[in-house]
């Protein structure tokens, strides 16, 4: 028998008993609907949690804090460039940069008569963009410039003061113009003089180019507002110059030694949230302390998953009932059609074809019910979301998100649709399996005598 004929026969059989087919399908519709809506609530909850976490910080970022290992009295290896490169080579690591806060007073940034008075940081300049630092103005340093390049935080220009002035403080929120225009005015960097008595040298003054201003973001940190970023190589060049100018011998413990670099903060960005755990574990195995949103996200997600499982099981129960309905319908149908099955067998229909027809019928009830169930779920989901902004929303999600933006309480992702269809079809096939085999085992001779 051709599959087309089998399908035609199956449709014919189903349409002959319209009411029963409709009722059985309705069972599957309700079951599928229950599962899909329940899970969609879980997904909605998960989405809103993620949105909330994303507001708190970048979910794909891991910060490495390394204060314990400083000084070499610990077993943990120094977190230097080689370790950074090692981590950079891990799977799923997109970008990595150390964040070095320059020692106080070693470096001076000057713009006209004004001196920069806030923290200076050394970073891998090419990492900034990928780490999600947004620009307010200008561009990112490429790291290949010959000149010293500076990228200021959003309020960087307000962090200048006049050393000869009366200590006036410029408030970025006041609407006043900053004291300097870092793009127009000449900006220079130089090293500080630790003690004017131990050195006669004048610190050389280097021209510097300001490439841009960052967009301030409290989730990324203070430095995006008030910091000044230098490429890390340029920072170390200035360190060496500082030692030279201040006559600090390279054997001195206070001297800068590139072999003793031990970053105490390194930012790692992972390509996707799902790899954060894996990468973070690997870094922790190296002995460093880390922080990521994962530590907040994970328990939250576990809770949500648990909730989804409970909600899904509730839906599952109704689908189980529907499965019994299918089995019952198919068994009934076999009793009614015993004689027909017998005739088919006598006329030379191979048993495989008979089984296929019955399985198709059961599978079709499952698939049809699943499809209608999914459509109905979309409708229910729509209504829930409409109501959700009011009563139920605050009940379910209110504890997680205060702001009402992008908060749908019921979300049906496409995988859920696929899952629902596959699952309901499978339920149909499984329910139809034993009746189909029963049909196959009917003795042709008995069947044609059957009335």
């Amino acid at each position, binding site marked *: *028998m051709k599959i087309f004929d089998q399908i035609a026969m199956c449709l014919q059989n189903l349409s002959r008993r319209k009411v029963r087919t409709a009722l059985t399908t309705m069972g599957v519709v309700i079951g599928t609907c229950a599962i899909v809506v329940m899970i969609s609530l879980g997904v909605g909850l998960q989405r809103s949690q993620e949105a909330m976490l994303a507001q708190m910080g970048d979910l794909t970022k891991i910060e490495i804090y390394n204060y314990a290992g400083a000084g070499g009295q610990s077993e943990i290896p120094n977190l230097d460039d080689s370790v950074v490169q090692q981590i950079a080579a891990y799977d799923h690591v997109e970008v990595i940069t150390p964040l070095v806060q320059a020692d106080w007073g070693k470096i001076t940034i000057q713009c006209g008569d004004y001196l920069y008075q806030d923290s200076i940081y050394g970073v891998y300049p090419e990492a900034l963009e990928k780490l999600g630092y947004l620009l307010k103005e200008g561009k990112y340093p490429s790291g290949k410039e010959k000149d010293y390049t500076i990228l200021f935080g959003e309020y960087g220009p307000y962090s200048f003061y006049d050393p000869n002035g009366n200590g006036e403080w410029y408030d970025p929120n006041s609407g006043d113009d900053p004291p300097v225009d870092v793009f127009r005015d000449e900006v220079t960097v130089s090293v500080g003089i630790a003690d004017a008595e131990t050195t006669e040298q004048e610190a050389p003054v280097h021209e510097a180019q300001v490439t841009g201003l960052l967009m301030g973001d409290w989730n990324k940190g203070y430095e995006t507002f008030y910091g000044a970023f230098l490429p890390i190589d340029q920072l170390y060049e200035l360190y060496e110059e500082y030692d030279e100018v201040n006559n600090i011998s390279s054997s001195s413990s206070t001297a800068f030694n590139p072999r003793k670099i031990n970053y105490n903060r390194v930012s790692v960005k992972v390509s996707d949230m799902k790899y954060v755990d894996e990468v973070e574990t690997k870094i922790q195995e190296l002995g460093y302390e880390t922080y990521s949103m994962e530590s907040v996200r994970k328990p939250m997600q576990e809770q949500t998953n648990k909730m989804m499982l409970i909600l899904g099981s509730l839906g599952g129960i109704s689908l189980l009932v529907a499965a019994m309905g299918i089995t019952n319908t198919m068994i009934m149908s076999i009793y009614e059609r015993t004689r027909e099955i017998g005739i088919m067998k*006598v006329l*030379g229909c191979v*048993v495989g074809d008979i089984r296929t027809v019955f399985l198709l019928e059961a599978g079709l009830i499952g698939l049809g019910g699943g499809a209608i169930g999914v459509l109905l779920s979309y409708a229910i989901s729509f209504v829930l979301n409409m109501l959700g902004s009011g009563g139920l929303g605050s009940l379910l999600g209110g504890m997680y998100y205060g702001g009402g933006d992008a908060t749908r309480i019921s979300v049906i992702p496409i995988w859920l649709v696929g899952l629902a269809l596959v699952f309901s079809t499978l339920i149909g096939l499984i329910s139809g399996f034993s009746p189909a085999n029963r049909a196959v085992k009917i003795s042709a001779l008995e069947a*044609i005598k059957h009335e």
Partner: protein
Amino acid sequence: MDKTPFIQIKDLRKVYKLGKERVVALDGINLTIQRGEICCILGTSGSGKSTLLNMMAGLERPTKGQVLYSGKDVTRFDERRWALFRQKNIGFVFQSYNLMTGLSGIENVAMPLMFRGMDKDKRTRIAKEMLREVGLGNRMKHKPTQMSGGQQQRVGIARAFVTKPKIVFADEPTGNLDSKTTMEVMELMVNKSRENNQTFILVTHDNGIARYADRIVTIVDGRIVKDEANESIARTREQIAADQKAQQPADGKEVEEAAPLSEQAVAANMSTEGAE
């Protein structure tokens, strides 16, 4: 034995167990049927005639003995092979018609062709023609419930002959029909069988319809008690063949189809592996 018989039944025995009692339904049947033969198995209710038919069609397994088709033992066939064998080689006419109530006349007749995997257009065309041949050209689209008994049986006959099977079994085909319709139906089946040189095996308790057969095998208590040629019909058949030859000397095809095939050709045609 220089020639392999078309159907050969060897020492066929069937014993049923009813509780502790053993009922011997068939007690050593030996029977040889030639291709194109119209054979009536005559017996009273409980004589074992239906059991014999069921075993020849693979609907029941014998306790002992063999059924050979062109020398091939079919008694050990599994269910699937039997289904394919019936699909290819056997047609059935039942006492209670056994039509599909939900299907139209055409669909009922086309069903065995569908089992073979024939295209819908083609099988519908063949079924229509077959229905016209049995005289139901104007009721093809009716459902069995909208037909008289005689019409239903004609649909049954069309269904049995539509695949041009080598053997057609009919189990009390006229049991539910009045005497006029019985005559029409019997003539229809016998003529159809003769047309295509099909072997027709009629199982009945009715002496009246047994006379349509070339040969009457009488069974009593599971044994063949009488096996005789029906002289009048045999003569008539020869007469018909002679008439046909005389009337249509140019139309070779018609004659060729009516003439019995050689047994080798039958053996070659008697395929057990049908298309699904």
